[in-house]
């Protein structure tokens, strides 16, 4: 692996679904000689793209798991993570962004900034990842890269600056004009592998001059040298412009915009040049960890190979040789044979085999130095764990992981399926922190939980294909929650005398709504409840939050204030106070007017204009609130908030209402109080279920 970190790039490729991420990655691998044949995502030969290694990915034409690969370009080593575009797989995007130094944000030249582009942008902001934009699909009818550049400004607030102009658009798209070099580039050969430099076509010269002027205006803000040269009308060199663009990009103060058509093999090589020229190398990015031995103080990690090693496990996979753990090394060097410590559980791990990934193929290496991405075999850990040299105790800050919003019961068809299902669930839950599973003890059903219908559908399908675990699924269920809406007091005495030591504890106080999940305030004075029993009281209340008293949904948004109580010198115990707290909770809960909260999803539909009314109608029928609808060329984008419970089967309904021409994305937005009629319906269903169980 290259040790000069200035020649290393760790980049991600992110975008909305179907923007061509995988298609672009396939071209990058071809031009960098990693593969010798381009396979299309939904190619007629059925091979599928190299990066979509999972059978299901190839069939559906979507990327499910982010694949990692690396290539070399212009004497630089580039590690690439191809990430899924579908919102249900957002955790994959989050994980990648956490360990990447830069991102190529792909936008469709027809659809522009779409809903998932916005989500990806928010994630980039969260992890402060610099990006360059690539406006893809310039060969499509309705392509308008200038409009997309403007949308980057208007919708995402980027300081987007065109560094290229198209030579022809739609079916006349031939190449690009580089506004830094002021040259035209065409792409010849069967796969566009021959990049031909030429003079700018005469009819585009004026446009190019004007665009360069505009670009220089924007870019000069990041370089005094360039500003001086512009003002003094001195010679402006390519290096001056490139250095200013690099400074602006790394500081996340500008987004250079490139364009082309990956599918038609146009302008991918200039994009690769831009990755090298403008995206940061590991040395440009400051990474922090927390020192667990020093009050969790932040420490800056240095990409020095001789320092103690710090590596973050950001993705797990179960392969034929055991668990494959993807790591990004931030400091030092992780070598084969090294012993590292997992800072979460302080367990020692010995590094047996280290590899570099190329989609689903591997390449053995002896060491992964700081600044690089690699993978290790046979190490048991969870996603997000930090591995460090034995002499330090650092932890990287954890990734932002969302709670699942939908669940499904699954039942194996036979005994063999049962065993395989357990294996599959064990692997999937380790790989994906947003996918959870548990056994409902009352029904004995295995429940899987995830971020959306597609998310769960894909895992059920993978169980069948990869583990031969045939399962039948129940109706999807929404993860409702309960909360209270008003303040209510409690004063409960737990008293039991059944022979032997008795139990005694009294708790008094009140509960009230709060924005937090749960708050506990102890205002007991004068030793009315001895200090050693206060944690037991809190534990008692917390225990009640798992299941609401009547509807049995998790309870959130409660603040409990403990004001008074009583104890008995002999009969009081932690157990007694836990029971007293439980009694207090039950006493106050119903008086506090509990309500059901339901998950509300942000639903964005993109539809041809003629179906706009029909689509808005569909939202209205589903208790949805339309926040806005915007016509953009021939398409309309409708943004809305809809309860998740009304979204089941929506894809089929939308398809039939729009002749299959509309698509939608859905992601969790917030929890909101369910209307009374809906709450009554839920209570009724719950009661029926209970009655059925009791029969």
């Amino acid at each position, binding site marked *: 692996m290259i040790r000069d970190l200035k020649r290393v790039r760790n980049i991600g490729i992110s975008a909305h679904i179907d923007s061509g991420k995988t298609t672009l990655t396939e071209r990058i691998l071809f031009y960098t000689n990693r593969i010798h044949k381009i396979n299309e995502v939904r190619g007629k030969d059925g091979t599928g793209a190299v990066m979509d290694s999972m059978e299901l990915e190839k069939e559906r034409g979507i990327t499910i798991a982010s694949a990692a690969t690396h290539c070399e370009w212009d004497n630089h080593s580039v590690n690439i993570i191809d990430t899924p575009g579908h919102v249900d797989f957002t955790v994959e995007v989050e994980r990648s962004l956490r360990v990447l130094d830069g991102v190529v944000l792909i936008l469709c030249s027809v659809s522009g900034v779409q809903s998932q582009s916005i989500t990806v942008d928010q994630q980039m902001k969260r992890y402060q990842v610099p990006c360059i934009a690539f406006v893809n699909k310039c060969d499509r009818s309705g392509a308008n890269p200038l409009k997309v550049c403007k949308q980057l400004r208007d*919708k995402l607030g980027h300081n987007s600056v065109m560094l290229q102009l198209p030579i022809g658009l739609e079916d006349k798209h031939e190449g690009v004009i580089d506004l830094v070099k002021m040259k035209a580039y065409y792409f010849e050969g069967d796969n566009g592998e021959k990049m031909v430099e030429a003079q700018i076509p005469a009819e585009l010269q004026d446009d190019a001059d004007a665009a360069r002027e505009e670009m220089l205006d924007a870019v000069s803000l990041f370089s005094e040298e360039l500003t001086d040269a512009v003002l003094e009308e001195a010679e402006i060199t390519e290096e001056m412009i490139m250095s200013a663009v690099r400074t602006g990009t790394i500081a996340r103060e500008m987004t250079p915009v490139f364009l082309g058509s990956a599918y038609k093999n146009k302008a991918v090589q200039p994009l690769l040049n831009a990755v090298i020229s403008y995206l940061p190398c590991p040395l440009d990015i400051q990474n922090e960890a927390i020192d667990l031995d020093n009050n969790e103080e932040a420490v800056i990690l240095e990409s020095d190979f001789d320092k103690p090693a710090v590596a973050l496990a950001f993705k797990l996979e179960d392969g034929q040789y055991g668990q494959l753990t993807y790591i990004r090394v931030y400091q030092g060097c992780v070598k084969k044979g090294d012993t590292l410590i997992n800072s979460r559980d302080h367990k020692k791990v010995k590094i047996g085999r280290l590899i570099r990934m190329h989609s689903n193929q591997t390449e053995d290496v002896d060491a992964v130095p700081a600044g690089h991405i690699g993978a290790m075999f046979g190490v048991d850990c969870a996603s997000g764990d930090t591995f460090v040299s034995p002499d330090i105790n650092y932890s990287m800050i954890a990734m932002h992981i969302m709670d699942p919003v939908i669940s499904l019961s699954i039942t194996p068809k036979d005994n063999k399926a049962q065993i395989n299902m357990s294996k599959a669930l064990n692997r999937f839950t380790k790989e994906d922190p947003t996918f959870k599973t548990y056994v409902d003890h009352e029904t004995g059903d295995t429940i899987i939980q995830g971020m959306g219908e597609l998310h769960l559908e894909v895992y059920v399908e993978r169980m069948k294909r990869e583990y031969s675990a045939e399962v039948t699924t129940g109706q999807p269920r929404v993860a409702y929650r309960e909360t209270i809406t008003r303040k209510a007091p409690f004063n409960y005495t737990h008293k039991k005398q059944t022979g032997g030591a008795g139990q005694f504890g009294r708790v008094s106080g009140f509960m009230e709504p709060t924005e937090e999940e749960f708050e506990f305030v102890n205002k007991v004075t004068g030793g009315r409840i001895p200090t050693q029993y206060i944690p037991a009281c809190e534990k008692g209340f917390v225990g009640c939050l798992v299941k609401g008293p009547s509807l049995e949904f998790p309870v959130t948004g409660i603040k409990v204030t403990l004001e008074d109580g009583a104890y008995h010198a002999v009969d009081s115990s932690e157990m007694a106070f836990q029971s007293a707290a439980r009694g207090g909770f039950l006493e106050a809960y119903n008086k506090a007017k509990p309500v059901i909260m339901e998950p509300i999803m942000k639903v964005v539909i993109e539809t041809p204009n003629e179906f706009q*009314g029909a689509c808005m*109608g569909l939202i209205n*029928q589903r208790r949805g609130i339309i*926040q*806005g*609808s*915007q*016509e953009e060329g021939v398409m309309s984008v409708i*943004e809305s908030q809809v309860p998740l419970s009304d979204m089941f089967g929506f894809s089929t309904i939308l398809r039939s209402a729009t002749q299959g021409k509309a698509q939608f994305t859905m992601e969790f937005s917030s929890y909101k109080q369910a209307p009374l009629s809906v709450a009554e319906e839920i209570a009724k269903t719950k009661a029926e279920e209970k009655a059925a169980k009791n029969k």
Partner: protein
Amino acid sequence: MLKNDLILRSPAEKTIGAENITDGQFGAVLSRAGVGKTGFLVQVALTRLLCDEKVLHISLCDTIEKITIRYNEGYTSLIENIGYVDAQIAERLWGEIQHHKTGITYNESTFNVDKIRDYLNSFKGADLTLPTLMIIDGLDFDTDLSDMLSDLKQLQQDFGLCTWFSMKSHRDEPLNQNGYPVQLEKYDTLFDKAVFLVTEEDKIQAIVLKDGDRTDQKFLLDPATLMPMEE
């Protein structure tokens, strides 16, 4: 309580009267470019939102994001005009009422009344409360809009709503003897409410051109917030 206080501060209340806004058919806010037509229309809409009614805001000139920003700004101006309002209470109220506004943007060239009719029909289909007020911002009254206005008249009769428009006037065009810009004069009979915004030194003057018998009343507004100013 806060809702009433906010309505009382509104320039729409001051000039037209909050209840009076939907008590009619077509209303118009006129001015030259950049004086504050959209801002005033937003204030008109906010009074209805504060009465827990639904508003449909159609724009042929702004993006959805811009419309959302304008409503946020309009609400903030009202809150700030009251003086001290608990930020949490103000935010909670905004959270409650803002969802009653639906913004739709159309390309001017493809805009037609049937699209709105389709949308409003879906309310009836789903048995939902219909909007009471429709704002149409950005129609070009320099062109012939007779057919479209007649379709809109029919639409508002069918769905029982009231429509307010923005109307752009021009500096070089003289006013008629009633003080109406030509854009309003052309469709005089269709509109029963009209407010003309003109710049007056460093303020904006809102002149009520039409409102039943109340005409030619003048009010001064703050040019930054459009909030009523003391005379």
